């Protein structure tokens, strides 16, 4: 900027108006924040981050429907050598939970009328509902044999387990069909409890639901602690008892409480460090306080605007958004360091002087974030919007408020003087052979490191739950014979009935796997509502066979029974869905989905139960081969693939962001622009090389951190270029303080045991260090400063 700019008096009125207007806006945001934090919970559905046009909507819906069922459910199984002690342990457990007043309630159990209503619902369609084994038996058995069997059953006690009048079910097919349906779980009611026996132990299954928000981020392990106490109470009461606790709330709580612990230790550690630095530099905590205000304003605005635009805020967005701290602080530091360098300048005038540089720093950061939002990934767009708004909020707060609030002098301290004066003595590259040789060496070293870099997007990398919890969950799944929620088939069809028919084709193949023992079974809507064709065929079959059996029995016993009448209309899916009897299996039905070119517009899920060996899954997946509309979905695999795609896209955008930033710099600095850009570019490359040399895998979170590095690193270059003729030392002070505080805040994340945070932190640890060290090396030679010897 020219000296005439600096000498012109600053008009106060626009600044005053801006400051008051900004205060009004902040109050509006504050009000919105109040309701936001009271009502909101964060979106944690990873699939919501997928581009809508690429993601099969039925898969996303299926996942959500299944997740909705279990996000609140806590499952506890208590095993004991005999039923009486299992009951005793369960009572002790229940008493302990009841006394704890935890946000848990017993899951709704079916009332007394449930069984009667369910039987009454299906009874008119009894003739249309057969198991595969029954169908085969009726098709092949000789009529005489069936009559003999019916007569024997009449003579026997028990009469063949009948659920209907004899003339409505003479072969007792109905109870067997129900037995097959009951196979969905191994637990059975016993003495008013759910029970099963396994491995020589009698198990009681206790179901609870959390009553608080589905994903509480408070970090309090209320549920886990209550369950741990209840477990202790149960084992005190029955020392042999074995208690397994599982469920999504336990995992969520564990993750939240660990995150809280880490945020506390790491967060307070870095706050202490940053406070010490700022105090050393300015001998006052006032600057620190103001910077915190600007930061809070930025984050609050980012949350409000994001939830206003998108309707919700994704958890990953906030993780990424937390990185705003590093960027947003630099504006305040730059201002205070400059104040210190020019103590006689009025704050408002100084701010006016600094504004172009600050604005450019903002512009480059915004450019980087906007590049993030270009591809059609809703998640990236949200992160981009969040970051742009957040950084803008912090920027405006700094620019319009700081000059008014900051009235006192910012005195130089020994520490700040040391840094400011030391700037001139720092080495710098000159255009000579030595510099060229150093760069070639550096590039070779980087190339070697980058070649070592391995890419790994496996979702399980991000899993940081304790092994004991995972093991208990797996054991509960095995005990109950639960269906796996992350691997399933999606079946599409042109109509409801087409879907059911295609399910049946798939099930015929799965039946072979069940016979081989690879699978315990499956769950499908067509188990409960067969396709119309299947219903018609089975109705005809049972009518033919049962008419014959009743005639035969009448003949032998001298009776005149006639077969009971059944509903002449089939059981329709619509009727089933509308009835409470479908509750347990309704989540399997996805319903209408966007039409495909093949005309399919309806979908459902077929789940697998009791997969014997996970390694056999790819083989089981082949059951879908050649079946129209049937598709295998492996969530673990597809989320890993999603992370990989994000990593790749972000990588491309990162390169694009560098180009955009370089152009923006060239617009203001012309041919000197590379000086501000070079340190960040070098740091990006160097960080990748170091990660490679450390054996750290490259994944999404490293790339996110590199995007942040671009936003932060360029600022340092700008501040030094901006003040190269006056106050370069002060600019350097702000760079040192900014880098140190960012380094403390994020570098400490490298200590985190949460894998995602660890890689994020490690990347910034390397990157910020390289930028801070190299930025002065690329400063231009200026006449006002003595040449470095």
């Amino acid at each position, binding site marked *: 900027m020219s000296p005439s700019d600096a000498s012109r008096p600053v008009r106060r009125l626009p600044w005053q108006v801006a400051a008051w207007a900004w205060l009004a806006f902040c109050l509006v945001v504050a009000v919105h924040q109040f309701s936001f934090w009271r009502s909101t919970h964060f979106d944690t559905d990873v699939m919501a981050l997928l581009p809508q046009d690429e993601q099969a909507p039925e898969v996303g819906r299926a996942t959500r429907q299944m997740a909705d069922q279990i996000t609140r459910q806590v499952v506890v199984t208590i095993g004991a050598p005999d*039923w009486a002690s299992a*009951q005793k342990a369960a*009572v002790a457990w229940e008493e302990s939970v009841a006394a704890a007043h935890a946000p848990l309630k017993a*899951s709704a*159990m*079916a*009332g*007394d009328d*449930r*069984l*009667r209503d*369910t*039987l009454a619902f299906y009874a008119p369609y009894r003739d249309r509902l057969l198991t595969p084994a029954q169908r085969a038996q009726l098709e092949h058995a000789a009529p005489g044999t069936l009559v*003999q069997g019916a*007569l*024997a059953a*009449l*003579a*026997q*006690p*028990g*009469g*063949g*387990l*009948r*659920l209907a*009048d*004899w*003339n409505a079910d003479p072969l007792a097919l109905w*109870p067997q069909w*129900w*037995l097959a*349906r*009951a*196979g*969905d*779980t*191994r*637990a*059975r*009611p*016993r*003495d*008013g*409890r*759910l*029970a*099963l*026996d396994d491995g020589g132990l009698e198990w009681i299954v206790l*179901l609870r639901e959390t009553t608080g928000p589905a994903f509480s981020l408070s970090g309090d392990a209320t549920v886990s602690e209550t369950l741990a106490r209840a477990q202790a109470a149960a084992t005190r009461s029955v020392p042999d008892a074995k208690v397994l606790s599982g469920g999504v709330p336990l995992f969520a709580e564990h993750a939240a409480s660990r995150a809280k612990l880490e945020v506390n230790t790491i967060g307070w550690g870095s706050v202490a460090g940053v406070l010490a630095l700022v105090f050393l530099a300015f001998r006052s905590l006032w600057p620190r306080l103001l910077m915190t205000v600007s930061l809070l304003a930025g984050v609050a605005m980012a949350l409000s605007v994001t939830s206003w635009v998108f309707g919700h805020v994704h958890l990953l967005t906030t993780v990424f958004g937390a990185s705003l701290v590093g960027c947003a602080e630099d504006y305040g530091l730059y201002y205070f360091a400059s104040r210190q360098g020019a103590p006689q300048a009025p704050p408002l005038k100084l701010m006016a002087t600094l504004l172009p540089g600050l604005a450019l720093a903002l512009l480059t950061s915004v450019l980087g974030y906007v590049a993030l939002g270009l591809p059609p990934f809703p998640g990236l767009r949200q992160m981009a919007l969040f970051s742009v708004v957040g950084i803008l909020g912090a920027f405006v707060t700094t620019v319009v408020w700081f000059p008014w609030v900051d009235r006192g002098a910012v005195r130089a301290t020994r520490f700040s003087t040391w840094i400011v004066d030391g700037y001139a003595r720092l080495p710098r590259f000159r255009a000579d052979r030595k510099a060229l040789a150093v760069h070639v060496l550096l590039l070779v070293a980087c190339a070697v490191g980058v070649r070592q870099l391995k890419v790994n997007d496996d979702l399980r990398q991000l899993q940081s739950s304790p092994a004991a919890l995972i093991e208990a969950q797996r054991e509960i799944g095995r005990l109950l014979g639960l269906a796996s929620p992350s691997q399933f088939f999606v079946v599409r069809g042109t109509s409801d009935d087409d879907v059911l028919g295609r399910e049946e084709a798939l099930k015929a193949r799965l039946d072979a796997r069940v016979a081989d023992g690879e699978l315990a079974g499956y769950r499908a809507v067509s188990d409960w509502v067969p396709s119309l064709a299947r219903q018609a065929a089975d109705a005809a079959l049972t009518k033919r066979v049962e008419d014959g059996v009743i005639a035969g029995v009448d003949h032998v*016993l*001298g*009776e*005149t*029974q006639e077969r009971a009448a059944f509903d002449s209309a089939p059981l329709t899916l619509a009727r089933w869905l509308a009835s409470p009897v479908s509750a*347990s*299996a309704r989540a399997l039905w996805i319903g209408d989905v966007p039409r495909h070119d093949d005309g399919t517009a309806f979908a459902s899920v077929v789940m697998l139960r009791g997969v014997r060996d996970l390694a056999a899954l790819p083989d089981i997946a082949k059951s879908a081969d050649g079946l129209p509309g049937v598709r295998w979905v492996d969530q673990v695999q597809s989320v890993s693939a999603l992370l990989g795609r994000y990593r790749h896209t972000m990588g491309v955008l990162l390169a694009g962001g560098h180009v955009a930033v370089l152009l923006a710099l060239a617009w203001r600095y012309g041919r000197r622009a590379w000086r501000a850009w070079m340190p960040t570019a070098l740091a990006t490359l160097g960080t990748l090389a170091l990660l490679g040399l450390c054996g750290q895998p490259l994944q999404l979170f490293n790339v996110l951190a590199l995007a942040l590095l671009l936003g932060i690193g360029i600022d340092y270059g700008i501040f030094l270029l901006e003040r190269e003729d006056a106050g370069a030392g002060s600019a350097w002070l702000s760079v040192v303080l900014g880098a140190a505080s960012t380094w403390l805040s994020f570098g400490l994340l490298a200590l985190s045991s949460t894998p995602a945070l660890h890689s994020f932190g490690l990347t910034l640890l390397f990157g910020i260090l390289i930028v801070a060290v190299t930025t002065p090396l690329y400063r231009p030679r200026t006449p006002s400063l003595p040449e470095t010897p």
Partner: protein
Amino acid sequence: MSRFVRAAALALVAFAGMASFAATPASAPAVSALAGDAARLVRERLKLWPALKGEFEQTKTLKGFRNALVSKGEFLVARGQGVWWHTREPFESTLVVTKTRLFTRNPDGSTSNLADAQAEPGVKQVNELIFSLLAADLDALADTFTIAAQPVSTAGWSLVLTPRDANLAKFLVRATLAGERDVQSVRIEEARGDTTLIRFSHQQPAAALAADEAARFQ
């Protein structure tokens, strides 16, 4: 003895009808004091043997049938092993209940499972119920039934078992047992309106099973 099989069958049906996590709300736990003096009286009067065999005559009155269905045959009850129920008239058939299975024995000696604890977990607990009936374990039975016991004349007694479980009660109204030293008759009344009356005769206790008798439970 057929009451055991009958109860098993009914209970099994009740359990089979429940899909997924359907269940009844927790009912009151065992009331061991309920049987009281009358139960003690039954225990004193009823003799329990390691094995018992005899003849039976069963009269079933079924809804829709004009005539009662009468069947006759022989039975064998072995404590800890199970029940063997051989119908001779009007049709030859054999039904066997063990701890883990409920099966029929075909004329050629082969067996066909009606229920298997491996396939249907509910079978085991139903069969446990049968075994507590066999052992006249009134405390254990009190978990499942409300029991009313009363003396009949000088040596006799009767027991009325009413299901506690509401779902079971939808199938079984009550079972009434009467006897002296042995159980002499069992009457089962179903919610559907069917009733079964079984009379036992020629009962012979034994200390142990013969080899061919033990093979019946395999």
